[in-house]
């Protein structure tokens, strides 16, 4: 995926706020790109623009060689075979009155994948691939823990075998062990399926562990980007330095 000079301005209490200010970035097949920055820096807006969930003012988004910036209706829906998104709050991604299994089946029927018998198999496989027993398919979202529901959200995002997954703070509501479990899962999918991942997080250590490249966003712009170890060890932009120096870490001794 490639973004070329994407811009998005919001109007808030009479003022114009440049949430995304002419941003260009690209993600190669099988690559994981980390997008970090303070709250309100525009990283979520950029992700939503890339996924065509928010209308952009100008610029282009190219997915797999195809300009998707102006697609609508059925053509846009087809894009979501290639691109899927996982959000911070997994419960918001499911209908609270519909079982997890029904929610997953709906995706397959929307995309016209397989016969009804095959669909059940695909759902079972998808749940198993994220470490959920098939019985979870019969449960309502409210009966799941945050970690289980986030796995189900990932299972659903992966059902259509996308080539790009956008994770917006997908693990920040989870505790450390569950977060590490999800990270293992994403790494496995990346290595086995060649999945590309745009990984948005405010946890720099997490991004450092998972991503090969990091882009730092501030006031709607990408202010620094480069190999993950370099951005963390030798930050160049003052804002990257500020983010790193504010970080409350466990320190060396622990």
């Amino acid at each position, binding site marked *: 995926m490639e973004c070329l000079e994407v811009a998005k301005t919001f109007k808030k*209490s009479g003022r114009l706020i440049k949430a995304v200010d002419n941003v260009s970035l690209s993600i190669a097949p099988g690559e994981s790109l980390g997008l970090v*920055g*303070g*709250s*309100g820096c525009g990283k979520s807006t950029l992700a939503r623009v890339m996924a065509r969930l928010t209308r952009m003012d100008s610029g282009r988004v190219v997915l797999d060689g195809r300009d998707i910036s102006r697609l609508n209706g059925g053509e846009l829906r087809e894009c979501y075979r290639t691109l899927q998104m996982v959000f911070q709050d997994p419960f918001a991604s499911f209908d609270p009155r519909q079982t997890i299994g029904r929610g997953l089946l709906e995706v397959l029927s929307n995309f016209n994948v397989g016969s009804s018998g095959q669909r059940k198999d695909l759902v079972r496989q998808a749940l198993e691939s994220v470490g959920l027993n098939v019985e979870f398919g019969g449960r309502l979202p409210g009966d799941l*823990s*945050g*970690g*289980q529901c986030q796995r189900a959200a990932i299972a659903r995002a992966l059902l259509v075998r996308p080539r790009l997954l956008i994770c917006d703070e997908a693990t*920040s*509501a*989870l*505790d*450390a*062990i*569950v*977060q*590490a*479990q999800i*990270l*293992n899962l994403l790494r496995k999918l990346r290595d086995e399926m060649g999945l590309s991942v745009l990984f948005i997080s*405010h*946890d*720099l*250590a*997490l991004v*450092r*562990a998972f991503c090969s490249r990091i882009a730092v966003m501030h006031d709607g712009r990408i202010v620094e980007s480069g190999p*993950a*170890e370099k951005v*963390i060890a030798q930050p160049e932009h003052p804002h990257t330095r*500020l*983010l*790193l120096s*504010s*970080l*409350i*870490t*466990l*320190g060396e*001794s*622990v």
Partner: protein
Amino acid sequence: MSELLRIDSLRVNYGRAEVLKGLSLELRPGRIFGLVGESGCGKTTLLRAVMGLLESGGRISGGRVLFEGRDLSTVSAEEMRRLRGSRMSLMFQNPGESFNPTRTIGRQFLETMRSHGSFSANEAMENISGMLQCLDLKEPERILKSYPYELSGGMLQRAALALAMILKPDLLLADEPTSALDAIVQAQAVKEMMKLRDEFGTAIVVISHSMGVVARMADQVGVMYAGRLVEYGDTGAVLSKPLHPYTRALMAAVPRLDGRWPSATDGAPPPPEHNVRGCGFAGRCQLCAAECLDRSQVLEPVEAGHLVACLRAGC
């Protein structure tokens, strides 16, 4: 100095599910206690039980909560209402819960302040604006005129923290106070909580899944697993020399800036409705022995200021 808060073998049930299975801890004035553990292990329930704000269906089924030596189960509803807010306050994990969605933030601050003390409107507004600015909310007037839904998650979380701190309580219970904040604002929020402790002697119980925040803030740490404390002691000792296999697993899962891959222990804690006979962690523990499945472990001191509930502690 005597304890401000003492929790004695506290048990809490939601229906048949025992969410807290006999938990004890004590906290002196001006001390900060960090509480860590997997989601669903009972951390939030513990804070709610102290405040007398268990969700419907929840009840204390054993043990006691003592605030300044008084058993809170003997305190009248009216007096509990007076204690909450002015003497002890709870910052909810979901900041939306701290606010009424149909009233402006400012009106709710004023209500809280006026129901617990006599403040002139100007005096109150000055206090509130000052506190909001300390938490990096740069336009306090705009925030105070807003309704909760008009603020971002991070802003609402800071407003909820300000509301919990505004009356300088003796005891602040903070449930994931910085989870929605970026590194820069998180550092400020931590600083403000510690300033409250330094200036007013507020004792704090802080729940966080950021081990860094706990390491920075807490004098003592309690590690919870499946409704019990499994390790308890001085922060330095517990985090740098963890003895319980669960604490070790937790520490190994924390991502570090050196890029090392966080290690994930398989499995999940037993659901609270399962009555586990032995150690709750046994099913996921690589050191598990036959005797671990027989009886539940109690916290025992291994060295001064460091207790652990494990037969194979430190193996």
